[in-house]
């Protein structure tokens, strides 16, 4: 896999694990245990889904390079990721006393938000670096 791609995915996983650790602390030390349990459930399934997406994107790009000009069927695994979200929702609906639905829904969106925020952060960082290089050159 490409170094930049692996680095980005590692950053997303790192951020998600950070949120998961904070959620476990909230679950253990605050009275809102159901909400944090739902958040942990949603974040865990969303993390699985992000890892699966990263692997599938790598496979699609690899297939585009490897089988140039040939017909090749590669899927993005959308149905599998939807199934993961459905599984999380069914668990939260089955045990409403243990897992909060709102927490689970927020947890499902967290890794995506982390990816987006990280992309903006990296972009601004690169821009600043490029500007610095240009200033040094002139």
């Amino acid at each position, binding site marked *: 896999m490409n170094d930049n791609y692996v680095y980005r995915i590692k950053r997303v996983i790192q951020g998600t694990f950070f949120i998961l650790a904070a959620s476990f602390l909230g679950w253990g030390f605050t009275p809102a245990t159901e909400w944090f349990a739902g958040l942990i459930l949603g974040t865990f399934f969303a993390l699985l889904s992000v890892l699966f997406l990263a692997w599938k994107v790598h496979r699609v*790009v690899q297939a585009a*390079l490897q089988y140039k000009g040939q017909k090749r069927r590669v899927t993005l695994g959308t149905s599998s990721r939807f199934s993961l979200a459905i599984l999380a929702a069914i668990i939260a609906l089955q045990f409403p006393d243990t897992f909060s639905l709102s927490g689970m829904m927020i947890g499902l969106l967290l890794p995506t938000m982390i990816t987006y925020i990280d992309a903006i952060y990296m972009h601004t960082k690169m821009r600043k670096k490029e500007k610095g290089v240009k200033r040094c050159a002139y």
Partner: protein
Amino acid sequence: MELGVLAAAIAVGLAAIGAGVGNGMIVGRTVEGVSRQPEARGTLQTIMFIGIGLVEAIPIFAVVVALIALFG
């Protein structure tokens, strides 16, 4: 119950249309770009990952909302 089924169907259906069109555009352009310029693979792959993540967040949310409308 009947209205719940209708709500679920509309939510999932509209979200699936959006995700289908969006994913198709992202993947199509990325594959085109990678085959034209294989050395830009890393950047394009990263952009595709971020794009698909963003596009599919809404349908996933819609599926959960539909499930809540059905069984909640």
